[in-house]
């Protein structure tokens, strides 16, 4: 026992030595290694001063991503949008910093707080799981704007006025693509591979199912949920199962859907993607993707913040406002009548003539 206590104290002494010894080492500014198009943050410990958005100073955006900037899915959609916006505005006008693989919520919460205390103008927590963390942190930084999604909750009802929310009506694009797939299917069978039956994925799948059914072509549609956002193999077996069942058009979403896309490519069946452009992954078989475009949302958000409003607004990304886009693959020829019907449905959706019950 004595021995152990002794060792323990030694450990503690050493740890504190290391800590105190190394602390000054952090003082010199970190050299900026350019990662991608990202501008690097200078040293932390910027006082929690109010970052008044002055015109000539760069607008600073921090991004917290559940997955990676290269996941070909939800996270990359936001990251790419910011990078595109930066190209448009100029690097001196827009600064970006990001933290990726923040699927652990305490990590994300630490990052949110840290960015806010560094004086970032806008901190985007890009995942619906970050809501409670934001609600706790935002009141401590009243002149920092926060945003999160997909959700419709800005916490204004709880007296918090510096949180934006964004959400997407992914079911409508799903509806149009469901109809296109049903018309393209020769076997009269289409299959869907979803990760977990919640949130954006759930609504998208609802849309696809109804889109298929409303064509009244006698096409059957079945869904398999893999139970995971990251299980690529389960996605691949899912696609395989649908194909063996005779499906010749497949749908899916989440970053693990690459497994299903590869299976579609190998078996030469059509694929429709969601959240991010899937076409480069398999140009031979990906007919279309419903793609998030966060640029308009971000532009408006930044303008609103510059005007002195730090939150309270819900952005709904839709096909009408350019928040979603259905991107077709130019390499795959769709029969003219199918394309015409798709355009017609798209117009109907945009006019709000189609209702998709979500329950």
């Amino acid at each position, binding site marked *: 026992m004595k021995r152990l206590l*002794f060792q323990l104290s030694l*450990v503690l002494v050493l740890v504190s030595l290391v800590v105190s010894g190394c*602390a000054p080492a952090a003082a010199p500014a970190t050299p900026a290694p350019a990662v991608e198009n990202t501008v690097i943050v200078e040293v932390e410990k910027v006082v929690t001063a109010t970052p008044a958005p002055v015109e000539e100073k760069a607008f600073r955006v921090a991004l917290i991503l559940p997955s990676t900037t290269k996941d070909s899915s939800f996270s990359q959609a936001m990251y790419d949008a910011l990078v595109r916006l930066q190209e448009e505005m100029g690097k001196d006008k827009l600064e970006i910093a990001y933290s990726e693989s923040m699927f652990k919520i*305490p990590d994300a919460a630490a990052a949110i707080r840290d960015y806010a205390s560094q004086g970032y103008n806008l901190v985007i927590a890009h995942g619906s799981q970050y809501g409670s963390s934001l609600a706790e942190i935002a009141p401590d930084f009243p002149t920092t704007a926060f945003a999160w999604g997909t959700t419709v909750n800005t916490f204004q009802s709880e007296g918090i006025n510096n949180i934006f929310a964004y959400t997407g009506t992914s079911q409508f694009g799903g509806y149009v693509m469901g109809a296109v797939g049903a018309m393209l299917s020769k076997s009269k069978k289409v299959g869907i591979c979803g990760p977990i039956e*919640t949130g954006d994925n759930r609504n998208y799948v609802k849309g696809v199912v109804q889109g298929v059914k409303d064509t009244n072509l006698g096409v059957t549609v079945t869904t398999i949920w893999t139970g995971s956002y990251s299980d690529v193999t389960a996605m691949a077996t899912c696609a395989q199962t649908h194909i063996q069942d005779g499906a010749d058009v497949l749908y899916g979403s989440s970053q693990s859907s690459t497994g299903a896309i590869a299976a579609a490519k190998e078996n030469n069946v059509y694929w429709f993607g969601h959240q991010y452009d899937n076409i480069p992954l398999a140009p031979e078989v990906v007919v279309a993707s419903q793609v998030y475009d966060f640029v308009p949302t971000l532009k408006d958000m930044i303008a609103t913040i510059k005007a002195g409003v730090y939150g309270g607004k819900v952005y709904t990304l839709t096909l009408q406002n350019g928040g979603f886009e259905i991107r077709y693959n130019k390499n795959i020829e769709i029969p003219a009548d199918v394309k015409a019907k798709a355009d017609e449905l798209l117009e109907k959706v945009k006019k709000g003539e189609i209702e998709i019950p979500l329950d």
Partner: protein
Amino acid sequence: MPMSDESRVKQLLDRSFDALLPLLAVPLAFLIGAVILMVMDVDPIAAYGVLITGAFGDVSGITQTLVRTTPLLLVGLGIVIAFRGGVLNIGGEGQLVMGAIATTVLVLSLPTWPGWILMILAMLAGAAAGAFWGFIPGLLRARLGVSENLSTIMMNAIAAQFANFLLAGPLMDPLQRELGSFLPESARIPRSVWLYRPIPQSSLHIGFFIALIFAILVYIFLWRTSIGYRIRAVGLNPAASRYAGINVPYYEALALTLGGMFAGLAGSFEVLGVHHKLLEYLSSGYGFSGIVVALFGKLHPLGAIPASILFGGLLVGGDKMQRVVQVPSALITTISGLVVLFVVSSVIFTERRARRRKIHG
């Protein structure tokens, strides 16, 4: 036996070297990390400076570190008990999730109960659920000879899917249905059961201090009670224990159950103290990191305290490093892996030296 001053000094030096050995392993791992950093064109000294100050440099860093320390310590304590009983509990992940589920369900189903009673009941429920999830592999091992290495891995997968199932259906926040967003989250638990946070603007909750107390209690339990003694005896030498009339399978099962209990409690604290609801990714690898913490703390409940603080700091500082220097998060994972490998490899030198001392002294 009286000892000369000289040998006493020598012994002191010996012991200090033993205690420092695992800590020497850490810089070695970081040295390799530094090479990787330099290949990626990042100044390692600046990067590591950020790592350390990020974790321990100010109040915000320290409190965040301690928030992460709490589940690591609790899971680690569970692993220590199991290890001392001669079983390897890889099921911390699943047990933590079950603890979180039980806590959330209990709190949400008794909304009218007074806060304090409900909070304590919720912790008990979490501990019980974790214990149950550890008891099943324990029972399977005791009765049917199923290896806990296998069953705990399977139990992790089942717990994760069970949580998914609940969050996609019965436990989903009714508000989510109303809004049409269907996020996999439970409703928020009432404020009255939130664990107290002593430091404003930080999420450090009293669960950390409770965990510290538990570390001491586990030490007393293992070294000062007859049940604890038997658990250690079974782990040390099952054959001799059997000969001495100890029911070996029973104590192995007990060790797994107690291990599960602490992981369950960790899950309970994550809900009551950190997230205030049940959601996805609640566990985030504490079940595995807890094993490392237990080893790094030399499989001693009190040793688990500095070990969990160190690893909690590594998690927090690593993220800070990602933010400030913008290196991929995978680099920090890589370094953690190296730390584990170096630490685990360094143990032999301590043992060899101990053996040599035994022979010579």
